[in-house]
């Protein structure tokens, strides 16, 4: 009832100039709200949802592209520079969107449930962490015993090269793991990839001996970043300084830069995904997902196709790992837990497996729920704890609420609920994947 009412309303409004007006209005309203109330989560949500209006309302492709570029490359950097918390949220959304898009190739297109996807992310991250830090010279020192003044193995600008190396090494890892296990049935594959994810995490935790490759649970730091020319900061301040309201530091500029890198990776992934999807390879993936027996009878080599999907997905995780290591300058095994893998899977499932806009929406939704809603709830509970407030009927003083109860740590609850509810009520996701419609002219008709 309600959904059909909204559909009707949407169809009424989604016409001619109205749709343009609404989209522009949404973007302007969002920007204005965030500008006037830089600390309001609601204002930020209004701005972020303008991407959705842009996607759903019927406007010309050129308009969509221009609006998206202005939003992503002008408005969001300014908003991020004004409030670095938003920048962090946006950066995390971008990173997770890229990861989810990569996993989407494996789960959404080829139908392979990979529960250890973060392992490939870890491979990329540790790759740059090892070569882009002093770790190479610490091989023979137990964690914490190395002298302070060790040199860095590679210069920070080798980062760019490692973006490519990360793709290759993670892809190869994917092939190496996939070769033996991709013959397995889907549910076994899920457990084996889960196991592989844990193996990588345990290795990261324990490969500080006999040779200290990973520095164990303490993780590796500092990891180098590519150099940023001084003029970049000055240029940004001279152009946007007025709008931002203060001059940004090099640290913030770095965060902006990594946001741009993540955006670039997302664009590459979308490009590759869409092109592959609508080709022999993509059709073979979907066929394998839909019915393996029928697919193989059409001459599709199952293992080879699954390997390809696995390797492509793994490569994207690898490059994001390199990016993460450089942007954080610190990594530890904790960032690559099973929960992270499930988090990325949740984004794919929530948004819609196989659907690119869906997966991005899923990544944004889960990240915002995680970073803003759960953490906001935590802050609110802490305020209550410090007040004299009492829950009326049961006469419970908020002061007595256990300190262990910290909603920010309840991501499993969030992920679990989303997964179960989506499977029961909307298995195709928020924005289900749609097949391309073709127009065919047969000349002899």
């Amino acid at each position, binding site marked *: 009832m309600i959904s059909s009412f909204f559909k009707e309303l949407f169809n009424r409004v989604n016409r001619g100039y109205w749709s343009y007006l609404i989209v522009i209005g949404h973007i302007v309203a969002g920007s204005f709200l965030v500008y006037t109330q830089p600390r309001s989560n609601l204002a930020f949500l209004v701005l972020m949802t303008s991407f959705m209006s842009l996607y759903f309302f019927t406007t010309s492709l050129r308009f969509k592209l221009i609006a998206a570029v202005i939003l992503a490359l002008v408005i969001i950097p300014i908003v991020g520079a004004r409030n670095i918390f938003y920048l962090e949220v946006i950066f995390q959304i971008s990173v997770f969107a890229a990861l989810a898009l990569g996993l989407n190739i494996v789960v959404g297109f080829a139908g392979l449930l990979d529960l250890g996807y973060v392992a490939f992310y870890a491979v990329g991250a540790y790759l740059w962490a090892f070569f882009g830090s002093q770790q190479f010279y610490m091989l023979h020192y137990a964690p914490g015993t190395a002298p302070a003044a060790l040199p860095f193995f590679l210069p920070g600008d080798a980062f760019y090269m490692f973006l490519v190396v990360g793709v290759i090494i993670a892809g190869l890892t994917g092939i190496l793991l996939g070769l*033996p296990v991709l013959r397995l049935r889907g549910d*076994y594959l899920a457990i084996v990839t889960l196991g592989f994810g844990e193996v990588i995490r345990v290795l990261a935790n324990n490969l500080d001996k006999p040779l200290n490759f990973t520095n164990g649970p303490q993780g590796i730091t500092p990891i180098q970043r590519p150099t940023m020319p001084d003029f970049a900061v000055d240029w940004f301040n001279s152009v946007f300084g007025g709008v931002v309201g203060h001059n940004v530091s090099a640290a913030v500029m770095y965060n902006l830069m990594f946001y741009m890198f993540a955006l670039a990776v997302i664009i590459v992934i979308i490009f590759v995904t869409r092109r592959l999807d609508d080709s022999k390879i993509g059709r073979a993936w979907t066929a394998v997902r839909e019915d393996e027996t029928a697919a193989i009878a059409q001459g599709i080599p199952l293992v080879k196709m699954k390997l390809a999907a696995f390797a492509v997905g793994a490569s994207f995780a690898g490059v994001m790992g390199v990016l993460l290591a450089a942007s954080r300058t610190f990594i530890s095994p904790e960032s690559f837990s*099973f929960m992270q893998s499930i988090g990325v899977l949740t984004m794919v499932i929530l948004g819609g497996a196989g659907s690119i806009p869906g997966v991005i929406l899923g990544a944004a939704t889960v990240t915002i729920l995680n970073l803003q809603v759960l953490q906001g709830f935590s802050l609110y509970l802490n305020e209550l704890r410090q007040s004299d407030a009492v829950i009326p009927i049961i006469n419970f003083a908020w002061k007595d609420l256990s300190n262990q109860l910290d909603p920010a740590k309840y991501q499993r609850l969030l*992920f679990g609920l989303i997964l179960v509810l989506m499977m029961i009520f909307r298995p195709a996701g928020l924005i289900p994947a749609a097949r391309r419609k073709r127009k065919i002219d047969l000349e002899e008709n």
Partner: protein
Amino acid sequence: MIRFLKRINVYELVRPVGQMVLFSLGSAAFMSAIAISLALALDGTAVGASLMDKYNVSLYTYTMLNLPQVIIDGLTIGFVYAAIALGYTMVYGVLEFINFAHSEIFAVGAFVGVELLIALDGMGILAGASLGMAYAYLILAIILGMMAAGGLAVAVERVAYRPLRGASRLVPLISAIGVSFLLQDVIRLVESLTSGQFNRIMPTFGNFDSRIVFGKIAMGTSKLTLGISVKSIIVIGSAVLMLVGLNYLVNATRVGKAIRAVAQDRPTASLMGINVNRIISLTFLVGGLLGGAAGVLYALKFTRIDPFVGFFPGLKAFTAAVLGGIGNMTGALLGGIVLGMLETFAGSYMGVFTMGAAGSEYKDIFAFSILILVLIFRPQGLMGKHVMQKA
């Protein structure tokens, strides 16, 4: 009375006990042989020398001194794995579905049992309890844990799996992963709200921590103590009882016949007048009961539990089920014992044999390596029959 006894299928009571003894002795002998020969081989090398340096004991003596305890520990954890593995294997046998949330069913059993004992302890009842009463309380805790876990398993099936029956294979699996995560945090939430912390410690009572010593054997300058802790006897004993009971239920009763029929061919079983939904619920109930009991036993053995306590035992039990041949109950028993042994041996000796380069910290991934190897080289498991995919 005699008529009742006559109706009991003695063979189905003796057979599983025989299998357990066989599997236990076999895997113990096999692993011991490997450990001892490795020790003898490495004694003359740098590995032996470094041990001699540190503790003034030869590698062989070191291995022998630890062997009895390692075997007992391996068997104890092996039987816990077997009890959990049966839950996976039964559900898989009937629905061809990995019940990913089974590890949390196990954890809920552990929490309910431990919370009951903590409550009794808080009332001062446990401290003054006689030995007999102590056992009664432990049994009560196990039964309560079983009931909670069994009920939860049935509820989960009803809510999160049954609506998805008939969907593609990955759909219920993803739902199960969701349930697993959800339950971990629900346990944490409930514990945080009620007791203020989510790490719980099994109270100490009764004589469970004491050891029964059979005797000592002199080995060079050291003495080899042959003994077993009461805990281990309880864990192994209860597990054996449950496994025999389950085996009897499935192989020698009418209900068991119905379960097997549903596992073989669901549509046909339903045509034969079997209420398939009820049998599936029953399968989850039985799996949950076993898992819950295993949870309390696990808590008794390892003392400390937290909301994520089920994750590793669950995965290892699944590995055990696959190792034995998923869907095959005897296989789950064998897989559990073998895996428990392998893991305990590796955890105890690997550190010494590799001179500290790789030790017990790799214990947890040991199981995964086995899982991957089994799936590659013998996907039907040690005891499973090769099943053809239907075209």
